[in-house]
């Protein structure tokens, strides 16, 4: 099974993410393919599995960012499962992203009073911590 993925890199100077324009592909072993199938319905579980998988880090070190100790990056897409919103969400993003993050971060919106901007700011605060969790740093 082939796993296609895309990356974003973290720019310390800009304090933000940048898109890596390339698309990468790995051939998964039969065992890894089975794990992939088990986890693909839960995108963050899939992401966490790749974070902990030696084969993935080895591929990055050998094929993607060689000799890049200290480089920070994150996965933005795995076989069409997009993680872009984790890195590029903004107050003006669409409702689907608001709904996703409200559920993920358990943000209760008291719609009697709460402005969209307030919720957006709360999401951004939560994302600062989440981005750190999702980030890879090459050693």
């Amino acid at each position: 099974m082939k796993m296609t993925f895309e990356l974003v890199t973290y720019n310390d100077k800009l304090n933000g993410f940048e898109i890596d324009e390339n698309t990468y592909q790995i051939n998964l072993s039969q065992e890894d393919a089975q794990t992939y199938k088990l986890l693909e319905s839960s995108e963050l579980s899939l992401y966490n599995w790749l974070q902990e998988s030696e084969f993935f880090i080895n591929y990055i070190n050998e094929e993607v960012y060689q000799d890049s100790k200290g480089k920070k990056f994150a996965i933005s897409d795995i076989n069409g499962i997009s993680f872009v919103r984790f890195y590029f969400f903004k107050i003006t993003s669409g409702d689907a992203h608001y709904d996703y993050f409200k559920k993920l971060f358990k943000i209760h919106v008291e719609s009697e009073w709460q402005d969209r901007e307030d919720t957006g700011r709360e999401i951004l605060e939560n994302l600062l911590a989440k981005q750190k969790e999702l980030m890879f740093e090459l050693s």
Partner: protein
Amino acid sequence: MDNKYIDKMLSQMDTELSSKGMSRRDAMKLAGISGASLLVGSTQIHAMEKDQAPIEKSGVTGKIVIVGGGLAGMSTAARLTLSLENPDITVIEPNDLSVSYQPGQTLIGAGIWGEDDIAYNRDDFVPDGVKIIKDRAIAFEPTQNKLTTAQGQEVSYDYLIVACGLQLDFERIKGLEEAGRCYSTGDNSQLHKTLGEDGICSIYTAEGATKTWEQMQKFIAQAASGKKTNFVFTHPSTPIKCGGAPKKIMYLANSRIKEAGARENSELTFYTNGGSMFGIPEYHDAVLAQFKREKFKWNYRHNLIEVDKKNKIAVFDAKWQEKGPWDPIMKEFEVISKHEKKKVSYDFLHIAPAQIAPREIAESDLGSAGGWVPVNKETLQHIKFDNVFSLGDIAQVPMGKTGGSVRKQYKVLVNNLISKMKGEPLVAKYEGYTVCPLITGIGTVMMAEFNWEVKPTPSFPLDPTVERWIFWLMKIYALKPMTMYGMLAGKA
């Protein structure tokens, strides 16, 4: 326990029930509340206590200071005295009437109750052994475990509970700046002087509720005389205590207008900063259906920002969203927020003011960026200072600004505080329950109960979106004694 009071209330309730050909037992069956022994013929609230798990006393010691002696602070103090063998508890509260029954203010606003029905002296509810400092805490040094009062008294503590409530922020409304900020209880003369006597009112203080009823009658009479009359009701852009209150007073005004035969000449319009009628979809749908049935008008995303008293014009910040530019990274069109001022003529203007944390909390190390006291929403422990807890209106807990929330919170807080004192993990959890007995007319209440799951959590085996007379009876007769003699005794 004031058994005489409870007996009197139940007797009144029986009279009302029998006028409908119904016994209290029948009524309980109707409401599905056979377990609610407050309403059972026991005549004593002691029966209710049997429903509660016995409270075990702990021998742990420590100096506990509670800032705020309202419902949250005093119920917590009472519960602590029941839970500790040697309680050392001090409550700091300047207001003599701090335990007054604020949920009754809506009823005062519609002439159903008077101020005497809700005024209660704090000193009548001080548990044995609890010390009261009649002052206001104004400076906090949580790293030093001490605070200072307005009169300069330094108070140290081992454990601090912040339950000081919130303030009504009328001063942010242009034209009403002189009203300043105030609490629901205490001296609010400046507020009432500023609001005046020409149709502007607010039930968020007891005296204001009385004035609301005065103004309501005046403009109902105007409508009854044949003059078209605009009744305007607002809901602000901040969290508020009792989120249903702005609608309750509108529903009650509608009842009074209909009683006077003045509905034809009356237009009732609700302006809310929010984007729906209620945060819970099921209740939103029910309220919207009620609004349509009663021929109310409504406008979402409207926040009151200015009042021109002379010309009787309310100015709202009206907001909406438009499609923005294409975002190539997120692969979608952005959503751009827009707003403009909208002027609305009123005859009668009921203001639900913005509500905020007192400055001394917001600007202290105890406060969050938003001003509230940031606590773990389940354990109610401060996120930075582990010997500090908070509950009630000031705590940064979603949907937590009702007496119904406090009823669940104070027991959790006491359990966790004692665990903390013992050096044990905090295992008690507040699960976000709250309740809003939404008065939809004189004689009907929709008992909206819900929690953080944003789903109805009815205590009764009945459709919670239906307005019921039996819930009106509960609101009028049962909830006050449960609050005043159950919660404030640390038991209900």
